[in-house]
């Protein structure tokens, strides 16, 4: 995590909780992004595998203010299923720390993220390679800075690769928000809370296949075309970043 530079004060007095003025997007004026990015510019991605040593595989991802850690355990004996199955089972759980959101405990009502993560990953894992057993994926959101689910999905597929689970392809995920009349990619939480619509794509870049697509809000067909094209382009770039992160680990070991 980035360290703060600057003079260290002798005593620490906490600054009052600043209620930042919420800017509501106006219909005809171009939206200015809080972190002065371009509309089609994603946040710089910091990805690292091997964050949790007891786990079979793990990854840590930091996209701007969104920080996620994912650990993968397995293939191991599944406690739930008593029935024989000739394909493996995937079990996903996404949870928020209580300090992840500006108001304490806000993340506890995001329970559907676990099933969304499951749907995004099950298309990419070769389940036949570990019959009768199950693979557990546990994701923890340390800080929620917007675009949480896409970061969780990308980090989880990196952790699965780190664990050595056989995958058809890495899964990269990006979301786009429609704020006023602009399409902004990789939104921060401020942009997400005022969007007119959001689109999240999860895809396997090398196979050019979409494993999950979630759209809400109001969209016209040409807008959906544009948004999908944007996302798919960003996904393939993110896929390359993920691949280079995995390769770095191997080259470090060789040295």
């Amino acid at each position: 995590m980035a360290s703060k530079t600057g003079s260290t004060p002798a005593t620490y007095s906490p600054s009052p909780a600043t209620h930042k003025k919420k800017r509501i997007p106006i219909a005809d004026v171009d939206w200015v992004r809080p972190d002065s990015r371009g509309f089609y510019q994603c946040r710089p991605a910091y990805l690292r595998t091997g964050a949790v040593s007891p786990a079979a595989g793990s990854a840590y991802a930091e996209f701007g203010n969104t920080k996620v850690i994912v650990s993968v355990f397995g293939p191991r004996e599944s406690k739930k299923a008593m029935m024989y199955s000739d394909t493996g089972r995937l079990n996903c759980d996404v949870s928020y720390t209580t300090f992840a959101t500006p108001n304490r405990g806000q993340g506890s009502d995001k329970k559907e993220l676990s099933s969304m993560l499951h749907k995004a990953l099950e298309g990419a894992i070769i389940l036949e390679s570990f019959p009768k057993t199950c693979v557990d994926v546990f994701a923890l959101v340390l800080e929620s800075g917007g675009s949480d689910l896409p970061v969780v999905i990308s980090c989880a597929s990196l952790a699965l690769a780190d664990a050595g689970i056989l995958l058809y392809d890495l899964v990269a995920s990006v979301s786009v928000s429609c704020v006023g009349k602009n399409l902004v990619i990789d939104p921060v939480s401020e942009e997400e809370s005022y969007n007119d619509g959001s689109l999240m794509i999860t895809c396997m870049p090398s196979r050019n296949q979409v494993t999950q697509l979630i759209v809400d809000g109001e969209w016209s067909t040409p807008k959906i075309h544009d948004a999908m094209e944007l996302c798919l382009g960003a996904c393939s770039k993110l896929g390359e970043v993920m691949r280079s992160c995995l390769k770095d680990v191997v080259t470090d070991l060789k040295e």
Partner: protein
Amino acid sequence: MRMKKKMTPEMVGLSVGEKNFIKGGIAQDLRNDGRKRLTYRPIYVETGVIPQANGSARVKLGETDVIASVKAELGKPRVSHPDQGKVYIYVECSPTAEPSFERRGGDELSTELSIALERSLLGGKSGAGAGINPASLLIKEGKVCWDLYVDCLVISSDGNLLDALGAAIKAALSNTGIPRVQVREAASSDEQADVDVSDEEFLQFDTSGVPVIVTLTKVGRHYIVDATSEEESLMSSAVSISVNRHGMICGLTKRGGAGLDPSVILDMISVAKHVSEQLLNKLDSEIEAAERANEEEP
């Protein structure tokens, strides 16, 4: 008297021959019950089935039978959005539909359906594209608002639950009457604000903006609309698209784990828009007929 003993695919499973028969038929635009790929089963709508609710409807799509009820209660707006009311959509899968739904068995399906419905009907975070405009549920900014609880029950399931639930919610909303309220100014400006809830006057909901959900199921290389549970057991993936009267896409959910080519998804969107027009017209006329039948009753 009809004696029908149905062995559902969930009970016995389809044989390889049956699967190939269905797939081959779909490839030739002929399904098991004689429909074409893009034809819906006959829709039957009945409104006002639950007298204690503010609005209710029952929709039968072939053998799929669902009930939706709308209850409005007074509540307090959220701190983050003081100018909006709240809408909660909850689906329950009853064990009468499937023995496996008993107790916790139907939970996963229920949550999936509830989330997909909330996404289609409540629009973006700012409220754009919402079928139910939360701002219309406001009584006093920051103090009192209507909480709308939309509860759906799946009585019998023969595939395509999402479309049937979407239709049932639309019909229930057109049947909903919200009591008129008068705000009495409180003496002290504290949290409580007194409201007079009228027993006589009711305000009807405007449901022209409520979208309809079209689920396209991909079997082999073709898409079918309104799949029965047999056809659903063969699907590789399904995309549920919610389209409103103006042809705008109000929500999209992809179900099923298999990967889909992006061009296929865009094609599905245009097919869904085309099919949704006919479905919207059919549904509106059925709802009108049901409301008229209600009024004619003594």
